[in-house]
């Protein structure tokens, strides 16, 4: 029964079904859930700009599409600028009231599209940029990206060569652009996701939503555990849910009961090779990042 109140905002958009069955996402795909929930919130007056990423495939082969809103597939690195330009085209032709949404994976966001993303943010292009982050190049077969976390196995960080670099902190980088809205969310908390899309829709300018999106084949996790994994990512503080407005105003969306990072790691085969020391290093890093985040939240008070 408590689940009902927990889904207050979702209830209001539950009836909108803009994504179709028959798409070709893997079973248990977090990105498919993310798209479905996002479209429910965004509604039909929405255009999706999708670069090379899993969703470029998921949407279905010609002449079919899983989304009943306009979709423009674009080159890997160009989601942000293409979306910004679609907005310019709409403005130039007098079309109003449309959500222009760039929908990109972590590769297209953290790596190849990073320059364009930064430029778009700096120009404050009037779009919603969504990065569904599955923490590697999943579409091409699980190669490491700069969104891959420390310690993870990928097909290009195999064996003892597991990733030795930290994950890039996208939200902080974007906040540093002083964009009007940057937020993290994940599929385990539909209400949070709906709320953040709604908030983004109410703001003009460059808005970024970073969605942690479990990938069963890429994380070597059970299909049925995608939501659990996303929940544990938040509860273990591996992926904190928060918002940054105008680059300065921080709001923590959820202060979950602390769960050991081990619970999160244990759900995923990509961390299986890590020994106790390495696992505790991850815990330590997560704790530190959390502390830093808490300090950033309070920096306004200091000023």
């Amino acid at each position, binding site marked *: 029964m408590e689940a009902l109140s927990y889904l207050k905002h979702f209830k209001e958009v539950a009836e909108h079904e803009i994504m179709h069955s028959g798409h070709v996402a893997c079973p248990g795909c977090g990105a498919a859930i993310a798209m479905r929930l996002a479209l429910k919130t965004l509604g039909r007056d929405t255009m999706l700009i999708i670069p090379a990423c899993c969703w*470029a495939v998921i*949407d279905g082969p010609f*002449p079919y599409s899983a989304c009943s809103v*306009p979709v423009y597939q674009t080159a890997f690195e*160009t989601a942000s600028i293409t979306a910004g*330009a679609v*907005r310019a085209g709409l403005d130039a032709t007098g079309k109003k009231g449309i959500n222009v949404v760039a929908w990109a994976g972590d590769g297209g966001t953290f790596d190849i599209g990073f320059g364009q993303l930064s*430029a778009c943010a700096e*120009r404050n292009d009037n779009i919603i940029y969504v990065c569904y982050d599955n923490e590697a190049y999943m579409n091409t077969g699980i190669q490491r990206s700069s969104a891959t976390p420390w310690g993870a196995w990928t097909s290009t960080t195999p064996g003892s060569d597991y990733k030795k670099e930290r994950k890039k902190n996208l939200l902080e980088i974007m906040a540093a652009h002083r964009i009007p809205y940057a937020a993290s969310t994940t599929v385990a908390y539909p209400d949070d996701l709906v709320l953040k899309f709604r908030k983004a829709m109410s703001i003009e300018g460059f808005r970024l939503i970073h969605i942690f999106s479990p990938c069963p084949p890429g994380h070597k996790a059970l299909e049925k555990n995608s939501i659990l994994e996303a929940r544990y990512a938040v509860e273990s503080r591996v992926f904190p849910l928060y918002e940054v407005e105008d680059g300065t105003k921080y709001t923590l969306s959820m202060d979950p009961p602390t769960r050991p990072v081990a619970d999160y790691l244990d759900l995923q085969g990509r961390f299986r090779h890590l020994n106790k020391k390495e696992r505790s290093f991850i815990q330590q890093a997560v704790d530190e990042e959390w502390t830093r985040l808490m300090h950033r939240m309070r920096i306004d008070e200091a000023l």
Partner: protein
Amino acid sequence: MQKVLTGNEAAAWGAMCAQAQVISAYPITPQTTIIEELANLVANGMLDARFIKVESEHSAMAGCIGAQAAGARTFTATSSQGLALMHELLHWAALGRLPVVMADVNRAMAPGWSIWTDQNDSLAQRDTGWLHYYCESNQEVLDTVIQSYKVAETVDLPVMLVLDAFFLSHTYEAVHIPSQDETAKYLPPYKPSIYLDVKDPHAFGGIVQQDVYMEFRYKMQVAMNEALEVAEKADDDFREMFGRGYGLIEPYRLDDADYVLVTSGTVASTARVTVDDLREKGHSVGMLKIRMLRPFPFEKVRQILSGRKRVAVLDRNICVGMGGIFTQEIRNAMYHIPEDKRPSIYGYIVGLGGRDVSPEVIASIAEDVQKRAVADGEQVWIGLKE
């Protein structure tokens, strides 16, 4: 209205006449004054357009793609390295059937850095599915921008118009500028048949399997074939309305000429003067200017060159390991005509990296081609320090 404009300014004013709605561009020498002029035109209200000041040429083209897909008329300009960086998206615009219009100021490729003209940048993009115009004068630049939209929007393919660095880009000429209203009578507003529309949603660019990919390529080929006629008519209509036209190719004093100099860009202007000189000296020489490289005006070129003795093709470019690119195009066009009508075709590499192609250089080629024994396919490098 008539104004004294540089070639770059003429390109910008062409976009203004055509009422481009979205401009997406990034500065590079020698293109910069195009976008500066556009920025002025937008800033002072003469052009009602959104100008996306992007962070790279790659994004400049992505910007055109996005805006064009949303149903807006777009314009951009670049040069050399910038064009090369765009390469991926040139394919995207063409396969996406987006009638983007772009000016490329021909500039030699690095390294080392050269800001001076040659055609290697644009010719490296020959196979991306764009239409290519090579312009000779500032007026032609402005007029070609307007014509480009007409053709592009009819056949749903993008157009690249090329002007030489500095010889045109930074050289002033008097240019007639039609008003936006006059231009609009020639060029109606952009109305794509299919575009991003929330009321009629389509997903563009999804996966295509082996069973249909070829057909999409074939449709581009059909469109390119149509484009020859469309471009011809667009030029005729333009001439009728504005009193100026250029043809897809332009023969100069060819009626009785045994020897033909094939040129493009500003070299054509120099060649015109040189041909006049040579005629006075009794040489049976004429010139053929190639204005449209893609689609290649096959029939017209064949017709014009058929029955000539010798053809000298001046290439301000080099396909290393093969030769001048225009030479290859001309040879290809002439292969299938009867042997007795087929001229010998000689390739001359000239003016790379902005080296001057003077009347003397052109005259030496005209003389060389008359003397040379066999057309053996060897490229003749003119003015090379041996």
